[in-house]
């Protein structure tokens, strides 16, 4: 019997083994690809990284706050302010905490209250001609509360009432700032780098 005939069964087994390995690899890669195409992530992750519907990645930050207390968002109030910062802020630095992206958020713990609150914020617009003003939409716990247009480099005091209904059943007050006129650092830059305002101080009083 020629040698080639003797080796033929082994060659066939080797070939079959090769196809098996190839099949296992192909199936594994298809399964992994399918898993990757269906990420198992929470809504915050999906909104920021995958859908890109927000520039502000929500985090479980919750600052402690006493009603009537004025919190500085300059360097001098860094410790207190840091606890309230959720996302979309850079700083604090000497002239305040700078917004970063298209939305910024603050979150603070509030005691049960019977009435609404009056918010008093000191904010300054980031200006770069031709953009000479900044429109800011402020929401509390997802409810639009106040719209303000800031202009000029000097801080402006903005005051508005937060109705009790906005936080009646909530343990925290989540304040979102949506910027309609953010300034990107360059034409090709990502929207996570847009600049809009500088927050200087924050205060809530019983209405």
């Amino acid at each position, binding site marked *: 019997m020629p040698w080639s005939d003797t080796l033929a069964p082994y060659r066939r087994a080797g*070939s079959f*083994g*090769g*196809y098996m*390995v*190839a099949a296992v*690899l*192909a199936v*594994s*890669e298809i399964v*992994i*690809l399918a*898993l*990757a*195409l269906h*990420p*198992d*992530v*929470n809504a915050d*992750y999906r909104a*920021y*990284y*995958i859908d*890109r519907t927000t520039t502000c*990645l929500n*985090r*479980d*930050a919750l600052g402690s706050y006493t009603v009537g207390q004025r919190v500085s968002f300059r360097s001098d109030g860094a410790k207190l302010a840091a606890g309230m910062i959720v*996302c979309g802020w850079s700083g604090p630095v000497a002239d305040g905490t700078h917004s970063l992206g298209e939305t910024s958020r603050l979150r603070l713990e509030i005691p049960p209250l019977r009435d609404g609150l009056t918010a008093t914020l000191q904010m300054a617009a980031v200006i770069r001609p031709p953009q000479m003003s900044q429109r800011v939409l402020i929401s509390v716990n997802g409810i639009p509360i106040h719209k303000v247009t800031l202009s000029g480099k000097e801080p402006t005091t903005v005051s508005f009432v937060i109705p009790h209904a906005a936080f009646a059943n909530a343990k925290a007050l989540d304040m979102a700032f949506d910027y309609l006129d953010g300034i990107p650092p360059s034409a*090709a*830059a*990502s929207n*996570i*780098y847009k600049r809009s305002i500088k927050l200087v101080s924050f205060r809530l009083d019983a209405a």
Partner: protein
Amino acid sequence: MGKGRTNNLATVIKGTGHASSVTDQAKHFEISHDRRSILEAPAVVAVPLLFAISGIAIRYAAFASVTAEPGFESYARALCRWDCHWYVDISERGYESFPIPNQSNVGRWGFFPLYPMLVAGIRTVFPFPTILVATITSIACSYAACLIAWPLLEKNMRAYVLYCAFLLSGPFSFHFTTFLTEPLFVLLTSCVFLALKRTNYLVAGILSALLSATRLVGVLVVFATAIQMFQQHRAQDGTTLSFPLWLLGRPDLLVAILISPAGLFAYILFLYLTVGDGFAFLHVQRAFGRVAGNPLLFLWDGLSAVPTTGWLPTAPQWSALAALTGLALSVVLAVRGQYGAGLFCAVCIILPLITNLASMVRYVVGLAPLIVLTAILLSASKLTWLAALVLFLSACYFMTVAWIGGYLALV
């Protein structure tokens, strides 16, 4: 090629010659070839070693010129810039899940795991600071990459000297001797192309799998493998249409192709299990501010970023020039018949160019086929070879100073 050509010549002479003088001539060829090989072997080992030593000396001198803190560890830390810190973190702490600790948006997921894993493994045996272990490992990888390049350079000693000088004592040698993925990437790329040159597809596939776990673009080397297979099929008088059937009839080739992206798929699975998102390495790019755009526009923006003072190109201009040079060299590779290498390099440049010009210089100089080609082209004449060698060695000092100083084009 030199050895192959000599062997072929000897075979031809042996096969056709009946006269004793011809046989003697053949023997003389073989003996002289063997002697040459014996003489070359120590040189092949010694040349990269010398450049490794000279490179450390030059870069240390550059480091000493900008800092007062002496010592090899301080030197290694000073050269650990930009992405290097991420790799140190991964090597020491691994990857984080989500939410990222310290309320950060930026996960380490964008940095591929093989090299930090390798350093972590070595550190368990040699318990020294990570950056020290990584620096020595990087030098070792670059040294090994030089040895692997010897057959890729067709055993051309002049080109080999230039290649070793570039990698270990050249203007970008800090990329190949600190904790970045470039040293392993160059080593594995060279190994893959050597395996392909020897038509050892299974080895090429396994090495490609490692390459795909080193950097995302590593997975693209599978195209070079497929092209090499196609070229082999054509050389055996196969037609283009019969190639898929021929491939399906070769289980070894199927395994080689399918195993090539295994490193990437393993990382995708790991990310799915830890973060819940297998493509976290892509999605995290948002937190780094990378936005997809038109590569041509990015190139144009880079080239038109003219300096406001002086005549030296700006960082964006250097990056754009590096991309264009890399693409031009990729075309030269294709023209020289190295279609797989040309395509691999071109796609490795174009893919990151879709987001912007960041790190473009590093990406281009880290493409082994381009370094091999450049070394061959520059060693075509003694004059250009000598000029390039002097330029590489002297630029090493100034570029290291620029790297330590955080010059943006070198990021």
